[in-house]
């Protein structure tokens, strides 16, 4: 067993473990930290697969952006140190059963399906190739989705401002 294989299994185990802890722990702040580690180990898997650009984007956007945003919202909406209320045991059991059944069903499909790969050479996922194709307007170019995503981000920004905006009446009355 080579070192690369060992690293892969280590990353996989840590990803799944921290993901599981993120959805089961009752301290909400710990859940956010476990989520952070899970996302970090997933970016490690991207590094292992030699998709360095995606790994970097994963760290920048998820770990640096979304998790920080989630931690901010936890600070704004919870007293620190407060535990989440305990779930009903029946709900937990049936949720675990449903998730496990779905997991086994999908896994059965995955292992029975015969995947066929192409043998037409490889295209390295370098920044150069990615940039040229993402902004390309030829057959395989992704310029149009790129523009649509930029409009979506603008719309999300405007939406956030509109949702967070308070009416003048609320400001006069004070409050949070």
């Amino acid at each position, binding site marked *: 067993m080579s070192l690369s294989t060992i690293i892969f299994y280590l990353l996989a185990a840590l990803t799944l473990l921290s993901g599981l802890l993120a959805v089961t722990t009752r301290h909400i702040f710990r859940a956010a930290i476990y*989520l952070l580690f899970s996302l970090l180990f997933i970016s490690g898997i991207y590094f292992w697969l030699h998709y360095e650009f995606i790994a970097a984007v994963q760290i920048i956007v998820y770990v640096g952006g*979304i998790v920080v945003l989630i931690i901010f919202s936890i600070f704004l909406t919870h007293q620190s140190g407060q535990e989440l*209320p305990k779930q009903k045991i029946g709900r937990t059991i049936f949720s675990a059963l449903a998730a496990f059944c779905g997991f086994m069903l999908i896994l059965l499909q995955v*292992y029975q399906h015969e995947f*066929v*790969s*192409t043998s037409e050479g490889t*295209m390295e996922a370098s920044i150069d*190739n990615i940039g040229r194709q993402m902004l390309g307007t030829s057959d395989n170019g992704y310029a149009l989705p790129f523009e649509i995503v930029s409009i979506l981000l603008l719309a999300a920004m405007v*939406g956030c401002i509109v949702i967070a905006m308070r009416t003048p009446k609320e400001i006069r009355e004070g409050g949070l």
Partner: protein
Amino acid sequence: MHRDRHAHTERNQGGWIIKMEPGLNHILFISTALFFIGVFGFFTRKNLVTILMSVELVLNSVNLNFIAFNKYLWPNRLDGVFFTVFIIAIAAAEAAVAIAIIINLYRNHQSINVDKAEELKY
């Protein structure tokens, strides 16, 4: 486009032979497990922030799937990479809007429990 459909065929003879060398099936196993961990969290959690965390886990498992298929099945193309980049961008936008809604809800109800969020409008 002519693809040699018999080259590099990975086949599990008899179904459940587990190879030690990591390949497509291993990554698909991880992403499936992560997906259903997210689904489990989505079922059991009552708090809107933790539900958002579960959704992020699900989105990440899908990204992992795209990258794995790109790496092992279509190494001559980069489509999986682009899908992943766009999913990450959309997830960021979704998280920002969701957190704006959650904080606004907390301002009005002093609670972000889903049971108490029956009326999002007033």
